[in-house]
């Protein structure tokens, strides 16, 4: 059952081949047997999952169902879930049982999904390897001595190992696409504002966006359908109609103009990864697409721009964790300042502290213009590069990540080297554009992700482009050894 797509599972449920309770038990059993190797879960919610599955089985009989009714998924532990611990991978929120549901959580529950639990992530989504989690690193199912990527590493590992049919993730600088690439699954970061951020614990509010992490583009379309749409509780949520994402999956790619930015194929890109990407582009050519070399001249500014904008917003957002209203409080504070300082000092890990300090510094008196204002201007330059590119092409393609999954511990002591992992994904967030990663031919048994970037609100086009590739190839069906 765990190798089936969401559509196939839905058909099985409706044909009476298995019930949602049986399906849920099957996944819970896999989690219990296999997750000791991966550490992808922070909280498994077996009891509520079975209760929801039972209700879903009833709904399937009455006909008030959606394509996701009874489908077992997992939630990144950044989404608030009422009555369930929402840790954000941090000691700060280890004791936090959310009093409300995020809009994404609520919409998926309303659609009838069964939530198997909350999955591991880099602390406050700050990381590219899932090694900053308070709950320990997640391991890559393709090689458990390697990282799954981050920050949505638990989501990616759980879906790759088929411990759930699908997962939610969030992406601030590549946190859906990079782990999807490193674990061999399909991940979609929608346009900024496409999915509500209400109840999604904030890291960098002008960049954060939630999206689906699935086995295929077809499954991603079904997930996004339920996640997307206007929400008055998020003031930055876009009031744009949500198209039927499944309807256009099979559209022809004849004449599709694909832009390959030369800056995404230069120094730093592993040669074998480049080969796998070029091979995937050949598949598109055989489907009638045209390839155009383009330039995104300000690409080199993306990582430095991000490491001003994201820490600045993070230092502001994370000021709410003060040991007073919720979350961790230090023992025996001697005064209010001591309470703030020790609660934050003990509650946050090293990477979160580094980013809060960079942001605090960049926003402090006398430095604002040199850092934050400058970065907002270079952000504009980066964004303009894409606007110009989309006058010539329909989608942009390139690698999601410069290498395959690296070894646990390899980069954890060198923040700047770690940051450069996101060199191809960060610009998309700065521009607010949608981006996807899908598996192409592996290198030395490790997955490689093809990134597809689209114009604003072109998620249906991205899903169509990804789906047609997955009709021609089987890379998305590959299973890591030991998780069959």
């Amino acid at each position, binding site marked *: 059952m765990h190798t089936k797509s969401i559509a196939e599972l839905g058909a099985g449920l409706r044909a009476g081949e298995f019930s949602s309770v049986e399906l849920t038990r099957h996944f819970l059993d896999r989690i219990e047997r296999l997750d000791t190797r991966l550490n992808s879960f922070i909280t498994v919610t077996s009891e509520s999952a079975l209760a929801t599955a039972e209700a879903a089985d009833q709904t399937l009989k009455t006909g008030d169902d959606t394509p996701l009714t009874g489908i077992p998924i997992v939630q990144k532990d950044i989404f608030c879930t009422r009555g369930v611990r929402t840790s954000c991978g941090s000691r700060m929120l280890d004791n936090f049982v959310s009093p*409300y549901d995020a809009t994404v959580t609520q919409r998926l529950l309303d659609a009838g999904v069964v939530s198997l639990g909350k999955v591991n992530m880099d602390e406050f989504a700050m990381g590219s390897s899932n090694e900053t989690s308070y709950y320990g690193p997640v391991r890559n199912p393709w090689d458990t001595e390697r990282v799954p990527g981050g920050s949505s590493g638990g989501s990616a590992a759980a879906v790759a190992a088929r411990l759930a049919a699908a997962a939610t993730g969030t992406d601030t600088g590549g946190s859906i696409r990079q782990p999807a690439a490193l674990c061999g699954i399909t991940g979609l970061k929608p346009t*900024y504002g496409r999915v509500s951020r209400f109840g999604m614990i904030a890291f960098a509010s*002008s960049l954060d966006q939630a999206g689906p992490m699935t086995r295929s583009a077809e499954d991603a379309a079904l997930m996004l359908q339920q996640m997307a749409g206007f929400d008055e509780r998020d003031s930055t949520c876009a009031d744009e109609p949500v198209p039927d994402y499944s309807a256009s999956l099979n559209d022809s790619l004849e004449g599709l103009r694909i832009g390959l930015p030369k800056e995404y194929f230069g120094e730093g890109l592993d040669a074998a990864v480049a080969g796998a990407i070029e091979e995937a582009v050949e598949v598109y050519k055989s489907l009638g697409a045209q390839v155009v070399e383009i330039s995104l001249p300000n690409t080199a500014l993306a990582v430095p721009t991000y490491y001003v904008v994201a820490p600045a917003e993070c230092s502001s957002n994370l000021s709410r964790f003060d040991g007073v209203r919720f979350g*961790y409080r230090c023992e025996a504070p001697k005064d*209010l300042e001591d*309470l703030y300082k020790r609660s934050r000092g003990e509650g946050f890990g090293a990477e979160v502290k580094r980013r809060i300090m960079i942001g605090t510094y960049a926003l402090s008196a006398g430095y604002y213009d040199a850092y934050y204002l400058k970065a*907002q201007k*270079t952000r504009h330059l980066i964004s303009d590069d894409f606007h110009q590119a989309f006058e010539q092409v329909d989608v942009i393609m390139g690698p999601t990540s410069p290498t395959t999954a690296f070894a646990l511990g390899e980069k954890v002591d060198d923040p700047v080297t770690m940051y450069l992992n996101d060199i191809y994904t960060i610009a998309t967030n700065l521009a607010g554009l949608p981006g996807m990663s899908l598996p192409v031919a592996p290198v030395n048994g490790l997955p490689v992700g093809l990134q597809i970037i689209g114009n604003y609100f072109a998620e249906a086009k991205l899903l169509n482009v990804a789906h047609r590739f997955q009709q021609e190839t089987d890379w998305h069906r590959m299973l890591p050894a030991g998780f069959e």
Partner: protein
Amino acid sequence: MSLDRSDVEKIAHLARMAIDEAQVDDYAKDLSNILNLVEQLESADTNEVEPMAHPLHMAQRLREDRVTETDRRADNQAVAPSVEAGLYLVPKVID
């Protein structure tokens, strides 16, 4: 840009975040490296460029000024470290 121990201590104080004495040098090194990365921005000519505050250049949406939330104080305070009679407790601020 290179930060020293006292810079790190000052920034940590601004962020109201205690830093382990033994780790201050490590933070000074890491933060200096990150700031060196960020300094690449200086090479970009941005004289004629408007700062970009929002990815979609959207105006802030406004809503009607009316009460929409219900009182959920008890739920929200259930997760607080210390409350009494509906109030959040902290160490004494005024003697």
